[in-house]
């Protein structure tokens, strides 16, 4: 099956199993020869234990987009080093079973992609045609998912202190855009710059930038109490 122009343009070539997987879904071959089962197990754990994920799932349910694991998540083999993606065409979060091997990584990818799904659910995001929308969601996802936490950056040998978080968010948003769209680096940088302030400061549904589990737990607490909160302002 040859690559269509559209597949290349929208980054679908990174996710070769979106149209047809190598092994039939649910087959013995799939479970023995791929990391599919491990991915499913880690996904289940992420959804049940990560306060980031729990908050996002709750917020999405309240916005009318209840997430069902079997419908809205797919564990697939992907190209290169990409860890996951959000496919707006099918409303699915793709998890790259061949590139995610640790639970902490799974938690982070699930959070990152859920942020895209949350944006898709609450706003008219034009994923395919509007680069500003794409950039905004990538900035938010890099900012709020823990992608740019101090420890993750150090693990990548990116050492920086003062406001390094913002540099990291900019850089990762840029990388994500360049990976899935045909656009030159300068144009992408310009777009990221244009929307950065707004999108960096949009912390929905967390209400804060969660730097770690405690922040995420407090954010979750605030979210659970939101009715009382808004009723008493």
């Amino acid at each position: 099956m040859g690559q269509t122009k559209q597949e290349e343009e929208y980054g679908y070539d990174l996710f070769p199993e979106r149209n047809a997987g190598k092994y039939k879904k649910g087959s013995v071959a799939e479970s023995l020869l791929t990391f599919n089962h491990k991915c499913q197990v880690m996904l289940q754990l992420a959804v049940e234990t990560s306060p980031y994920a729990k908050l996002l799932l709750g917020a999405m349910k309240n916005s009318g987009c209840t997430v069902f694991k079997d419908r809205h998540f797919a564990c697939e083999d992907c190209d290169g080093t990409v860890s996951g993606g959000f496919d707006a065409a099918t409303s699915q979060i793709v998890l790259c079973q061949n590139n995610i091997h640790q639970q902490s990584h799974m938690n982070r990818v699930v959070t990152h992609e859920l942020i895209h799904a949350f944006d898709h659910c609450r706003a008219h995001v034009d994923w395919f045609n509007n680069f500003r929308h794409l950039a905004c969601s990538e900035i938010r996802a890099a900012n709020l998912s823990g992608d740019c936490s101090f420890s993750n950056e150090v693990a990548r040998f990116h050492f920086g202190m003062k406001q390094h978080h913002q540099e990291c968010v900019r850089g990762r948003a840029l990388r994500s855009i360049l990976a899935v769209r045909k656009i030159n680096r300068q144009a992408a940088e310009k777009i990221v710059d244009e929307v950065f302030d707004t999108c960096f400061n949009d912390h929905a549904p967390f209400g804060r930038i969660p730097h770690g589990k405690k922040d995420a737990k407090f954010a979750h607490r605030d979210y659970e109490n939101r009715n009382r909160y808004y009723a008493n302002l």
Partner: protein
Amino acid sequence: QTPRACSDYWSEYRHCRSLWNRFHHYYTYGTSPSCYQWKEDYYNCKACEKSTGGEAKQEALQRSERNRVAEQRKFSPVWELRRDPPSDWHLPLNHEKPQDS
């Protein structure tokens, strides 16, 4: 009723002042976090509970919280918010459907 339980204000204050949080705030914003507002809110909250002279404290507390909400909203969004969720969110997957945008 107060917007949050009084113990919530205290735990936010303690968390704000912690070394861990101050480190991460500097890492994110390049500045030290300002935590005194949480402490003030806690004392106002306790005063509301006592219900003597609670009115003024209640107002001060509400003002502080409304400020927090306003801080979160002072940007102009890049996209238009939906009134309803996407219509195809719950549609079943169709594996034969060709990918079209």
